[in-house]
């Protein structure tokens, strides 16, 4: 509201927005975890194992560390050995990272013209390694 000469005027301005302010990348990822948890609530594939509650929790904690303003959302899947897996892929890079519920994660990242990077037993609280962010940043 702008006060002009003691007389109150309300000025409203309509600006066409091309950005969806309601969209939250973090919420999208957390919703995806909820969806997977519901889908994989019972074992039906012979010899398969469901992800533990801890695996989903580790994935959730990890999501909260992701710099989603710099990198695109990963694809999240569940594997038959109980892994909650995050994948980023682009024309020149690939990142494969996953959780089994022990509070740690492992990853493999490759990018054209760069040495591949690998990591095992990384505590979830440490978040995503900087090198991986650099790999994935090109996808954002």
């Amino acid at each position, binding site marked *: 509201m702008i006060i002009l000469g003691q007389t109150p005027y309300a000025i409203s301005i309509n600006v066409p927005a091309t950005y969806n302010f309601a969209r939250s990348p973090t919420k999208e990822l957390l919703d995806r975890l909820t969806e997977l948890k519901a889908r994989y609530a019972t074992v039906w594939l012979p010899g398969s194992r469901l992800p533990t509650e801890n695996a989903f929790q580790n994935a959730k904690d990890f999501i909260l560390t992701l710099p989603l303003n710099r990198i695109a959302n990963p694809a999240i899947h569940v594997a038959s050995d109980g892994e909650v897996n995050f994948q980023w892929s682009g024309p020149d890079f690939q990142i494969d990272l996953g959780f089994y519920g022990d509070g740690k994660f492992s990853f493999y990242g490759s990018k054209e013209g760069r040495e*591949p990077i690998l990591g095992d037993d990384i505590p979830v609280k440490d978040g995503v390694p900087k090198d991986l962010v650099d790999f994935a940043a090109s996808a954002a």
Partner: protein
Amino acid sequence: MPQEPHRDERKSAVPWLSPGLVQSDEIVLRTLLDPDHLEPDGKLKVAAAISLEDIRFRGWSVDRRKFTSLQQVRLFHSGLKKRNTTLRKCYVLPIPVSEIRQRIPPNKVQDFVVIDAALWRKPSHATVLLFSPQTPSAARKFRNDLLKKLPPYVDVTEAFDSTDKHGFLRGMLRQFAAILASPFRYII
């Protein structure tokens, strides 16, 4: 740490049920489930289609085409669909064993082995495993490499031709022969 699996391609994991060692000129079939293993655009979900524990310890299950049949694979698929009604369709990946066993330059080291792991009344069963024990991160690298070698998946009917009709029967006959030649014949 799970028990170290059998990784020696020169020996069967279950000799008393074995129809024979897996030859490099064979084709093995891997079942893919839609939507569990496939993205909406049809691409393979890497981790869902090839689990780390499978290639590291348990063995990634495949069927040897020459010891199974269209009917047997369909039977397996219909069993899966009964267990999970959200399953849309089952496909198969027809993979040449030579591709899996390929030795990669410059070191010409083999990444994966294909082991005969026949089961009772399933002589076609074989497993794909990493050539040697690997850390989870290295296994992730190898599975991404394996994914690049895989052919496109097909409808199960396209994976068999007219010469493959009696694969299951052939496998069962060989399995009976293996049982009769083993000490287990006294138990049976």
